[in-house]
């Protein structure tokens, strides 16, 4: 039987935390970024696209690892290819999902091929799939912060028409909002975010930061501003909490991140059901 303390323990916690301050900063930045872009992914019903993008990002990163160039660059390149392809496909989920289903295993295959060809440390290989935030160095941290700032800034500019286009496409189009351009811009921002998230939680678990926090928030609020705020809070708690919990046992962070975000979702479910039973807000 598994000893519980091998999964959760706080041995030498206080001495370990300072060593991972870089990782904690990275987790916070990524949490904010994920929480910020999450509501838009949610509104545009893009969960599967995030998965597809992360697999292509993974493929890009493995190729980069094999070639001995920057993994970040590879991840970003893979994401952007996916983003542009998906952006051009437009916003119709029906057409999109099939294309993603086609792209995803292909990206996965490329990724696995180059990881197998790679002769370096095997922890690097595993890291791309399941995350390796403890290995965050200052260069990567700087890149993460710069990209996060760029994405946040761009989101601030396009948020309003993009949200309109996402939740109410017929009227948004009538109001002259450039739907296709916005779709491509958003997919590029999503690609950048995914490429960053991959380095924290790995390709397989990107969804737990980009999808779950917003899905949880959407259970308990219908107010766009509150949705945004809550999903940021949930994502940061998941990311940073996951890092901290993984310290003692010395296990990968991803199971902790995914579990925390899943538990938050589970907690939000009954709260949402209760609010609905109460007739939500001021509904007469």
């Amino acid at each position, binding site marked *: 039987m598994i000893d519980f303390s091998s999964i959760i323990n706080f041995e030498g916690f206080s001495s370990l935390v300072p060593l991972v301050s870089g990782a904690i900063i990275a987790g916070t930045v990524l949490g904010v970024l994920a929480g910020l872009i999450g509501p838009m992914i949610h509104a545009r019903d893009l969960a599967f696209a995030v998965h597809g993008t992360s697999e292509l990002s993974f493929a890009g990163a493995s190729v980069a690892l094999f070639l001995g160039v920057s993994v970040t660059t590879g991840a970003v390149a893979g994401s952007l290819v996916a983003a542009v392809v998906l952006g051009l496909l437009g916003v119709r989920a029906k057409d999109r999902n099939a294309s993603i289903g086609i792209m995803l295993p292909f990206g996965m295959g490329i990724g696995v091929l180059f990881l197998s060809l790679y002769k370096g440390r095997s922890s690097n290989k595993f890291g791309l799939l399941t995350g390796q935030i403890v290995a965050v160095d200052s260069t990567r941290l700087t890149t993460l912060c710069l990209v996060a700032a760029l994405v946040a800034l761009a989101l601030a500019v396009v948020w309003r028409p993009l949200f309109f286009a*996402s939740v109410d496409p017929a009227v948004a189009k009538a109001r002259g909002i450039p739907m296709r351009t916005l779709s491509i811009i958003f997919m590029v921002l999503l690609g950048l975010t995914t490429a960053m998230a991959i380095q924290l939680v790995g390709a397989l678990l990107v969804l737990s930061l980009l999808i779950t926090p917003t899905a949880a928030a959407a259970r308990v609020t219908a*107010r766009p501003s509150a949705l945004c705020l809550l999903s940021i809070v949930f994502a940061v708690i998941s990311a940073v909490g996951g890092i901290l919990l993984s310290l003692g046992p010395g296990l990968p962070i991803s199971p902790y991140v995914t579990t925390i975000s899943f538990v938050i979702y589970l907690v939000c479910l009954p709260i949402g059901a209760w609010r609905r039973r109460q007739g939500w807000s001021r509904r007469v």
Partner: protein
Amino acid sequence: MSDDNAGPAGAGPLDPSPRPEAARLAGASVTFGDRVLWHDVDLTVHQGEFVAVLGPNGAGKTTMLRVLLGQIPLSSGVATIAGHPVTKGSAEIGYVPQQRAMDALAPIRGRDLVTMGVDGHHWGPRWPSHSRSQKVRRAIAEVGATSYADAPISQLSGGEQQRLRIAQALVSQPGLLLCDEPLLSLDIRHQNAVSQLIDQSRWTHNVGILFVTHEINPVLPYIDRVAYVAGGRVLVGTPDEVMRSETLSDLYGSPVQVFRHNGRIIVLADEERAPHSHGEHQATTRD
């Protein structure tokens, strides 16, 4: 013949004193490749006027709205909004789409939907604004949606959603209201309420209304004129002028019979080229 002057009443029968023009099509034609959807259409909608666009599916009713929204170019003729050539995203237009199940994923309230009608198309962050929230509150109150404006929109009934959509369309003070089947999938009671609400906006907001519908009866008490789209032509006139067996038979190029019963209009065509029956079955069974 397919223009305003088709009927004896000339340009705008209920409109003796010329009001400002909300929208105009003049000699307008739309072609997709080799196919002419409709041609040489002349139609003017004045402010305060309610015009229903009728016709069978695929005849090009919605296309007429999309032309005025600047989404589809005319192959010939001109289209103007308030006297200016059509542009994409004209502030002069309020648009009310079909009621569709709002995506349950979209976590927004009715209030947010109406707010998007004010400035949802602007770039940059939306800063809190007292005058905006007041405008939104007023628009919501006008359509009687105050009590449910803060509930998630996915939990509202179709009729409630359409009320909010009307508020969303009117909140920007447009001169023209384009409605694309706004009654579809509503029950009779809500059809009547929504029609009445749209009719009211002519007095409260002085808008001209172009209302695409496959069913004339819910709006029959309100409309000034009908633009009947069929067979590549558009016939414009009062309901009494247009909704007649001879006129519609001529337009369809096949026998069509128009019946009137208890103030309702029933259009029947032969099976082969059946236009549609204006949803009369539904209406009679419910009555």
